[in-house]
């Protein structure tokens, strides 16, 4: 029966939109390896080029962060639940950056402009 993996919305482009997928493997690393064969692209979302867990994506086994278990070597048993949790910035005004840029009211741009202005003023 394997391990059940909760896929967050951000990564469902790799799983054809599936919210929950299953994979086999005795450790988190093994499950990620199998995930990659089923859903190419998933490994690079979770691990960096050195095979280390990315610092902006957390992995939980039965609701516990694997950093406090055995990291990627955390052992898994059939029926365990694995959850992937990427950092989300989300909040208020994420939708239309192009419009905002044109209107000159993008938060990102204004913050940066303000900072540049301040730097300039300090000089």
């Amino acid at each position: 029966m394997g391990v059940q993996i909760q896929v967050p919305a951000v990564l469902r482009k790799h799983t054809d939109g599936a919210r929950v997928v299953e994979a086999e493997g005795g450790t988190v690393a093994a499950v990620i390896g199998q995930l990659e064969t089923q859903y190419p692209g998933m490994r690079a979302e979770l691990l960096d080029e050195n095979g280390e867990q990315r610092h902006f994506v957390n992995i939980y086994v039965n609701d516990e962060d694997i950093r406090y278990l055995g990291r990627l070597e955390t052992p898994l048993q059939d029926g365990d639940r694995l959850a992937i949790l990427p950092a989300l910035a989300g909040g208020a005004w994420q939708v239309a950056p192009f419009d905002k840029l044109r209107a000159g009211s993008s938060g990102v741009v204004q913050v940066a402009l303000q900072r540049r202005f301040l730097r300039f003023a300090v000089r």
Partner: protein
Amino acid sequence: MSVEVAEGANHRVLTIDQIRRYQRQIIMPEVGSPGQRRLLNAKVLLIGAGGLGSPAALYLAAAGVGTVGIVDFDTVDMSNLHRQILHGHSDVGRPKVDSAADTLHDINPDAEIVAYNEPLSSYNALDIIRPYDIVVNGSDNFPTRYLVNDACYFLKKPLVDGMIFRFEGQATVYEPGKGCYRCLFPAPPPPGAVPSCAEAGVLGVLPGIVGSIQALEAIKLILGEGTSLVNRLLIFDSLPMEFREVKIRRDPSCPVCGDEPSITELIDYEAFCGGPAASALS
């Protein structure tokens, strides 16, 4: 945990109007007259008057939170209105904090609304946050999210955090000394590593639910009632209509709240939010 709310001289006794206004929550034993006075003396700061900040501000002001601060430098855009329910059609083009203050005054003239029509940065974050008891985070970008987290830890303020992405939301409470956002994610992702703003979208109801959860958590902290989301990250998936949670721990190696912190002052991360803004800056 309950928040230390200063016993203001102004709300030692409830007025007749206040008893009328708040009767349906005063009759609950968990609130009562003492709880209502705590709410009236409490100061809550909202970061953002957008999708999350709108419902949070409305419910906090309506509940009688005495001082509601709002930080936002944006103006109301037509595309905000499907989710930012503080603002109306006639507010398009106005500063969001002005529109928010009008709406909140109308809902509850009791609430003092303090508007900060400026971007939050390392220059002003500590000064703005310092007078408040609780901070509710409705920011939409990583630089602000880290700035608010760090400032709240430095000032020992509880932070009620919320995040949304498409049909998913998250909420938690960071209590100083019991873990922070950097225990979860030590540093912002590099630009391009997470979906850009242009890829994101959201149904208005979703921030409505997450922002309401944030308001409720803030009220619980003020009243000292119930079990807060401290050390738990609530994950809400609206399509299957599921709530799950994962554990959050204080990370002893956390760069801010760990045993040997490497970050001891505020950082202004370079603003990024996907391709368009980044390229516009260069």
